[in-house]
């Protein structure tokens, strides 16, 4: 589900702030490649503010990540990965 469809304006602004704060913790000497382009943390923060395609994708995945963290789903998923391989007998 697309982020613009699930958040009202107020929630969206709050999530934007969280995502931008998290992006600002990325070290300055790191670039993030997605597609053919490398982006700095400042550029990614700008995209989130503007709400362009990459910005919205970042909001969606950050929101999912934070939800998975808070619900514990992330650890369940990581355990599943571990078990799914071990169950093949290797």
């Amino acid at each position, binding site marked *: 589900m697309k982020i613009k469809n699930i958040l009202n304006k107020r929630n969206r602004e709050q999530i934007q702030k969280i995502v931008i704060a*998290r992006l600002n*913790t*990325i*070290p300055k*000497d*790191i*670039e*993030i*490649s*997605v*597609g*053919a*382009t*490398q982006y700095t943390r400042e550029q990614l923060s700008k995209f989130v503010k503007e709400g362009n395609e*990459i910005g919205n*994708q970042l909001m969606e*995945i*950050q929101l*999912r*990540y934070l939800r*998975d963290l808070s619900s514990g789903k*992330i650890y369940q*998923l*990581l355990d599943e*990965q*571990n078990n*799914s*391989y071990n169950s*093949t007998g*290797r």
Partner: protein
Amino acid sequence: MNKTILITRPDDDSTLNLLFFWTEPVVILAKKKNFVVLDLKSEKSSKKVFDSYIRKNNPSLVFFNGHGSDNSIEGFNNEILITGGLDEFLLKGRVVYSRTCSSASLLGPRCIKCGCKAFIGYDNPFWLPRSKTIYGNPLKDKMAERFLAPTNLIPTTLIKGHTASDAHNRSKREMSKNYREMVSSISTSEERKLSFFLYCNIVSQTLIGEPQSVL
């Protein structure tokens, strides 16, 4: 079994250059295991060469490195190699690993409908953090290694005779291991801050088609 694999690895931007170098260990292993490796390096990753090689040599594994979208995979200079609804039939009867953004979302299922045995790819963007300070040494980029070394396990596991499911799970397991290390107390602050992007790749990696497919 046709012991032939086809690899596309354009290198016309810095992200592709990184994938180019990280594909080399796969090429070395495949040759060691006596596979015929059709290595479409750089400008050889063109539509014309790709079509010609795939028709003439009937590879059992096609390993794409490049840019992608929901419905296409690109080669050198952003030339489209495969488009869903147009020529995905070229992948019929093969196992495919698409190390590109998003191609598992629409193109992957279309390939399976057309008879592709198994398609492993990403249904969202493939995120790849990298250090600005070591552009000249792609294999020395430790952060890129966290993200790319586990993905190499997909083709190498297949080459060793295991199933698509084994390859997919082994890769995800290694990514999960890296994620756990990146959020642990032994990691660097940089790793902790970038772990989120690895998590995105873990949940985005998808296997479509017959899990028990082998080369």
